[in-house]
């Protein structure tokens, strides 16, 4: 699903940040795993036992070519087949905003994962706001390159929205990393400026 996010430096940063979050040899599920690049990296670097779920047939085949185990499926249908807390980590990388039912997907991933890693583009990033404010068009950017009529990103959200959502749903935020233009923004870690100046966010969350 996250094919809109290819090639850029941001991708590498995103992958390496996620890689650092994951413990050696753990069991990982990547929801919307795309062509399997992240899973492959995790397999090679962290020796994880992992698999992915991906809706696109082309990308499923690309995963198989990389030697990954992958299930062709729609994560919006849930993860009913997977027992509670089966995975050490469930990853939802740049995919939350393109699900039909983000709330259900979040609930399901928190059910099957001991820890979950969620990343998304921040729609309150100042350039997005600026763009929208001055042009009056639906904002486009490097991480949000689509037109309103063909974007897969149907549930865009902000960092503030995510904090509020987590609070309302008793989700614990264990860690958050903000990035802008392919750099980690440590200067506003844990500050409310994140919502304005972070282009993307990665959260590690849990729910008992």
């Amino acid at each position: 699903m996250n094919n809109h996010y290819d090639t850029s430096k941001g991708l590498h940063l995103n992958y390496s940040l996620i890689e650092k979050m994951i413990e050696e040899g753990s069991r990982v599920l990547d929801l919307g795993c795309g062509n399997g690049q992240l899973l492959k990296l995790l397999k090679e670097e962290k020796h994880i036992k992992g698999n992915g779920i991906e809706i696109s047939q082309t990308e499923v085949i690309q995963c198989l070519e990389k030697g990954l185990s992958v299930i062709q499926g729609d994560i919006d249908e849930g993860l009913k087949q997977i027992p509670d807390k089966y995975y050490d980590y469930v990853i939802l990388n740049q995919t939350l905003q393109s699900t039909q039912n983000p709330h259900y997907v979040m609930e399901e991933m928190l059910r099957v994962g001991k820890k979950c890693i969620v990343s998304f583009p921040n729609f309150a990033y100042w350039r997005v706001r600026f763009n929208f404010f001055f042009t009056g068009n639906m904002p486009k950017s490097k991480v949000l390159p689509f037109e309103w009529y063909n974007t897969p990103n149907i549930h865009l959200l902000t960092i503030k929205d995510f904090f509020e959502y987590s609070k309302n749903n008793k989700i614990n935020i264990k860690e958050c990393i903000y990035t802008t233009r392919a750099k980690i923004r440590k200067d506003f870690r844990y500050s409310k400026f994140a919502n304005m100046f972070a282009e993307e966010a990665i959260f590690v969350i849990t729910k008992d």
Partner: protein
Amino acid sequence: MQIDKNNVGLVETKFFTIDEKIKFESGVEFGPITVAYETYGKLNEDGTNVILVIHALTGDAHAAGYHNENDKKPGWWDSMIGPDKAFDTNKYFVVCTNILGGCSGTTGPSSINPETGKPYGLSFPVFTIEDTVHVKKKLLDFLGVKKLYAVAGGSMGGMQAMQFAISYPDYVTSTILIATTSRLSPQAIAFNAVGRNSIISDPNWNNGDYYDKENKPDRGLSNARMVGHITYLCEEAMYNKFGRRLQNKNHYDFNFDIDFQVESYLQHQGQIFVDRFDANSYLYITKAVDYFDPADKYGSLKEAFKNTDAKFLVISFDSDWLFPSSQSKEVVNTLMQLGKDVSYCEIKSPCGHDAFLLEYEVQSKIIKSFLNTHLQGDTNE
């Protein structure tokens, strides 16, 4: 005839006889059983580069290549088996057998019972998918196969591949299940029932005793085949293939001869089928397919797959209503629940159930990737 370089070339069907009796699931002990088989590629020294491919309902051991230079058609899965193909005979030793109870060389109801000197007919015992798997295992032992690198099959072949992984967990490294199910839907059983009924109600069937008669139950068998062919296609496939086009005419004839192309196709399929298939075999094999239900046998599908140790690849086709994707997903979900290594791909195709024989390009890609990488995986360990 020009045989291209990706073809296994000229091949022959060989035979192996299991002399001792085998105990069938029904309790009956039966033997001897002769198994017709073909092999392609070379067995490695350890006997571990073996892929067993298993045919569907009416297939045979002739999966690839040609029997002689005048053959019009190669084996039934020639598009998938050969040098550099999905089942690459440069790397793998590919084995295919005719099913127990069949009529293409393996002992079945049309074979001569050595005790009476006459064809078995209905005295042939009813067998199950599991019985057919045990017979295949005997042949593999004879061939010196230490472990299957993969077992692969479509439709009924997939059922046997599944049962192989269940019956011989330590013997199977990977399992490829294509357009198959862990149990037929009542709808699919119903179609089989109509097919069997059509044979049984043919007066020439004569309680299965027709082998020395002049007239065989051809009518019944060809009707059964016609019903079968409807289930192998789908609405879209029928529109694409025939539409409402008329056969060699521009207007209706206002009688009960063949008007539509689809009628002509089914009749033709029925007619050519009787030349190569035995009516009793059709009864026995469809029965085995109907009975197959590991969830029922082992208590649940989870229980059935519990001890399997193979890596699984499951493929289904979105337009297949006979063995629908939902049934493949059930297998995939169960394997996931058990923490087994499983991959699943639902191929888009307008071809219905027949897709597993037709959509070889995308299947080849998937299967090649699966087999290759998992070979790499093995060497990494």
